[in-house]
């Protein structure tokens, strides 16, 4: 009997015959091989995803924000709090006067699930009421709770008697 197709698959069998196996054991081979191929393709997809994140991180540039007057230095007593928005109207921030000459400002969004944090003057820390995530007032570092990252810090500068927000520091490690 003559055979059509490419007889390069071994034993003089055409390649297509491998994919249409008659024996059950042969059929299992085909199913496994195809499934393995599918898994390797998925692995390629994951690798490409990681590469795209890497390329995006290379292309990323730190955004520049316009300076904005937040408050007058004499406006707040020690332990006093003022809420403001920066850099856009949707970004709520919190300014605290920790000492006579120490002002700190952070994004008010908890880094866990974005609940609004508030300043606890007695404990000297920022507290998130949703899941009890606490942040150190001096640097925004996580003290306890589910948040994994510190609060984004608003960079402040003194211009005469006025406090001016000039940028946002995400306090990233890498």
């Amino acid at each position: 009997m003559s055979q059509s197709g490419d007889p390069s698959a071994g034993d003089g069998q055409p390649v297509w015959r491998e994919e249409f196996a008659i024996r059950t054991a042969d059929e299992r081979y085909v199913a496994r091989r195809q499934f393995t191929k599918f898994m390797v393709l998925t692995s390629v997809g994951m690798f490409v995803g990681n590469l795209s994140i890497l390329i995006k991180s290379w292309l990323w540039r730190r955004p520049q924000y316009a300076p904005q007057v937040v408050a007058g230095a004499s406006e707040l007593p020690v332990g006093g709090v003022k809420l403001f928005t920066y850099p856009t109207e949707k970004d709520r921030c919190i300014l605290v006067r920790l000492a006579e000459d120490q002002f700190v400002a952070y994004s008010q969004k908890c880094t866990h699930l974005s609940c609004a944090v508030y300043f606890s003057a007695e404990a000297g820390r920022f507290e998130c009421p949703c899941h009890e995530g606490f942040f150190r007032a001096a640097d925004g570092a996580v003290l306890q709770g589910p948040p994994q990252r510190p609060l984004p810090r608003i960079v402040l500068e003194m211009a005469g008697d006025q406090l001016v927000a000039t940028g946002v520091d995400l306090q990233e490690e890498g």
Partner: protein
Amino acid sequence: MQSPGEPRRRRSLTVIDGAMSMILVLLVLQMWLLTATLESYLAGHRGVATPAAILSGILFLGCLGLYGFVHGADRAAR
């Protein structure tokens, strides 16, 4: 009646199953790596992107190597 190549095929199937399980483990690891990297990137931690991409590449090469092994075992069994 059992064909003469049947025990060899069965052995190969076991080997292929083992390799597939290892690929599956690598794939799950790679999925976790991708989600963790994306989470960190969106949180502003861009430093993790490079080691994560390298590790993902190594995992992919591992998958590829195992696939080559499966392919070879498959061929040998035939």
